[in-house]
């Protein structure tokens, strides 16, 4: 029996029920009417302004749309907005499409756009990218014209608008449903509309008949939540799902070599670093910080941790973001490290805590550091806490060292350097006003060359101070079945699912 009427996710039973063996090569994607993809975590909400999880955004790409998009060449192209114009540095007028309807049948207007972007400016989740928007003066001029006001010039604006962070919500629906309910059963303008969300299991979508653009080749789409990375890749390999997000490094080769599956990998826009608590003994001493950096054989560390799928970080954000300047890494020199430690008064050794939680990468870094720093007389004890405790300790300045890989929301230096503002509560606590000045300057400069110079200076400055130790620019990968095409890697790890096609 099918056990109490629990429905298989749309179409899921066709492929996976019949078992992996059959699906191997047996599937005829021509008449496939559903898309099944596996995400690695359950989103807290699907409302793009109510969370920061890439899993929620990925599902959201089918439901919501943005004013502009970025094409393959990096150009910003019209989407829900047809054209735009800078009135001045802080005022932009957008003309919107007039043929767009929400899933509930209501029209998409400039009201909705103004509502969405103002929300972006105030929501504590999205203000990292939209804090420059002036929420009180951004308004609809007429039904399809939006005036966007900025509080200050903001260079990454279009990068932000084209990212999924700037998705357009339905004002009426959200206000009448309430934000948590809306996040649970969202209404957008995208090609798929929300159907059902089975807690912990899956989110189901179906085609939106009134969609203004090109219809997608599938009628339903289901996001299955599969936390265990092994299970995710096995489902992909056995044909249980069409697409699997966030593949573990150890699965890449197999997915790549398997003729039935395709590995889509690329460089993530996030980078990882070792946090040092600059307001805490002994890390307030630059000699200690530098000693620690010199003590790391970064290539070995990165190879072990990322299993060959990352570059050693030479700076504080990835090369493909403007203004990147190669400043590092610090030379591996244990002798020098020992010497610096001795100078700082720790010749007899030093004991420090490394904080981590259950995470496949951070704890591995911890273990390698334990060994490498141990070699120069720094005794590392690894404190494994859980995420909640780690977050709490981190933001109350109690974490001494840790490895971190904060998500970079948009491919812009301002977002990539999001850990550095002095107002941030995380334990890095450098309190260096010069850093803040440079950040402010970079953000307000529209001229690309000038911006690049500012950020170049910042990167050099940060390196000279060694407030943190950059570790890696990791790659990431999704996997698809061989009959899927069109899905592109996204450096923010939020692939646009609307581009998926069946071969």
């Amino acid at each position, binding site marked *: 029996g099918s056990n109490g009427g629990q429905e298989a996710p749309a179409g899921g*039973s066709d492929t996976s*029920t019949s078992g992996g063996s059959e699906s191997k090569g047996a599937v005829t994607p021509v008449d496939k009417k559903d898309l099944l993809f596996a995400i690695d975590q359950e989103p807290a909400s699907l409302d793009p302004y109510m969370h920061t999880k890439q899993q929620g955004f990925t599902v959201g790409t089918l439901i919501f749309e943005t004013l502009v998009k970025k094409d393959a060449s990096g150009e910003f192209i019209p989407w829900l907005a047809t054209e735009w114009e800078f009135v001045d540095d802080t005022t932009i007028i957008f003309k919107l499409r007039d043929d767009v309807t929400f899933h509930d049948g209501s029209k998409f207007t400039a009201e909705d756009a103004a509502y969405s972007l103002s929300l972006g400016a105030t929501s504590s989740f999205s*203000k*990292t990218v939209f804090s420059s928007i002036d929420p009180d003066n951004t308004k609809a001029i007429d039904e399809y014209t939006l005036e966007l006001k900025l509080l200050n010039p903001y260079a990454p604006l279009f990068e932000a608008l084209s990212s999924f962070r700037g998705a357009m919500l339905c004002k009426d629906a959200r206000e009448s449903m309430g934000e948590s309910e809306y996040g649970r059963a969202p209404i957008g303008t995208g090609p798929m509309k929300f159907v059902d969300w089975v807690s912990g299991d899956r989110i189901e979508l179906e085609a939106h008949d009134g969609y203004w653009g090109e219809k997608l080749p599938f009628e339903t789409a289901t996001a299955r939540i599969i*936390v265990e990375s092994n299970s995710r890749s096995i*489902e992909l*390999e056995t044909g249980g799902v069409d697409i699997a997000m966030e593949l573990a490094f150890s699965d890449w080769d197999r997915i790549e070599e398997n003729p039935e599956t395709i590995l889509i990998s690329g460089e993530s826009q996030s980078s990882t670093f070792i946090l040092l608590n600059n307001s805490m003994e002994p890390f307030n001493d630059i000699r200690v910080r530098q000693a620690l950096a010199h003590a790391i054989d970064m290539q070995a560390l990165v190879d072990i941790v990322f299993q060959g799928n990352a570059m050693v970080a030479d700076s504080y954000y990835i090369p493909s973001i403007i203004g990147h300047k190669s400043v590092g890494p610090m030379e591996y020199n244990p002798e020098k490290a020992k010497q610096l430690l001795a100078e700082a008064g720790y010749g007899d050794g030093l004991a420090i805590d490394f904080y981590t939680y259950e995470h496949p990468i951070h704890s591995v870094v911890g273990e390698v550091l334990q060994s490498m720093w141990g070699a120069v007389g720094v005794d590392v004890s690894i404190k494994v806490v859980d995420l909640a405790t780690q*977050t709490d300790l981190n933001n109350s300045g109690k974490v001494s060292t840790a490895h971190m890989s904060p998500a970079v929301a948009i491919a812009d230096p301002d977002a990539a350097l999001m850990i550095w503002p002095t107002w941030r509560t995380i334990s890095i606590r450098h309190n260096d006003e010069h850093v803040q000045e440079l950040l402010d300057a970079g953000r307000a400069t529209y001229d690309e060359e000038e911006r690049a110079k500012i950020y170049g200076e910042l990167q050099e400055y940060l390196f000279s101070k060694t407030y943190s130790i950059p570790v890696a620019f990791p790659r990431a990968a999704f996997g698809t079945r061989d009959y899927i095409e069109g899905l592109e890697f996204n450096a923010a790890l939020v692939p646009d699912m609307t581009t998926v096609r069946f071969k």
Partner: protein
Amino acid sequence: MLKFTIKRILVAIPVLLGVTLLVFTMLYFTEGDPARLILGDTATEEEVEALREELGLNDSFGQQYISYLGGVLKGDLGVDYITGRPVSEEVMDRLTTTLKLAVASIVFSMIVAIPAGIISAVRQYSAVDNIAMVIALLGNSMPNFWLALMLILFFSVFLGILPASGLYGAQYYIMPVIGISAGSIATITRMTRSSMLEVIRQDYIRTSMAKGLTEFLIIVKHALKNALIPVITVIGIQFTVAVGGAVVNEQVFAIPGLGKFLVDAIKARNYQVVQGGVLVIAIICSIVNLVIDLLYAFVDPRIKSQYQKSGKIKRIRMVKEEG
């Protein structure tokens, strides 16, 4: 009998209250701030503080507990901090899945374990006994997650005959059921065996032998039912374990069950979810215990008359082990 049932339910109430208080106290003293976790690293201290205020996290221990209890009495289990949904809905979503799986697992365990236990007992120290016990114990000796991963590797990857995760149809149940049953099969087999061994040595079995009955009749009619009480007890315990304790299997098989949900909630400091989930498990546990007690009466007329005479509770529990 009714009187007994009612008394039994009344006795469960202080236990349930105790469970909420215990869980509440533990959570209260746990490090980690749910507000900070929800808002993430980028939120300012003020925003976090505002959310704490909104969630009532700044109230004193007593205030928080009393207002929570007040809610519970009105049937309100609070809200999931993260999704903003009522805890009762969130828990119920998981509960149905979990119950289906738990029932399937226990039924499977019984089908395998009870005959195995009987045969082992009847042929004590024989090769059959040894083999049955080793197999049963193997299931109990493997770490759950390891077994689960091995099952997936074997059945989904190498043989490709079973779906690796989810719970969307009959064949999806096979591996999780094996994974969850592995422990309970061992426990039930052992209990059946030792209970049967004990019963077989009773005088009334000798009486039935002196009557000239067949071995089959003696075992099934005279011995088995008498051996059932401790077996029922462990089955009940195993059922409650399957309801809340299948955390690891749920994680590996991507099943949205109560156990995994609870563990995630504990880690996310999603207090009201933890409370609600544990409370629901405790209620199920009480119900199972009640059902067990009623089953005792069904199996053993002595217990039945005890219940009937007065509602007084005398539990004949033989909790020897728990997987």
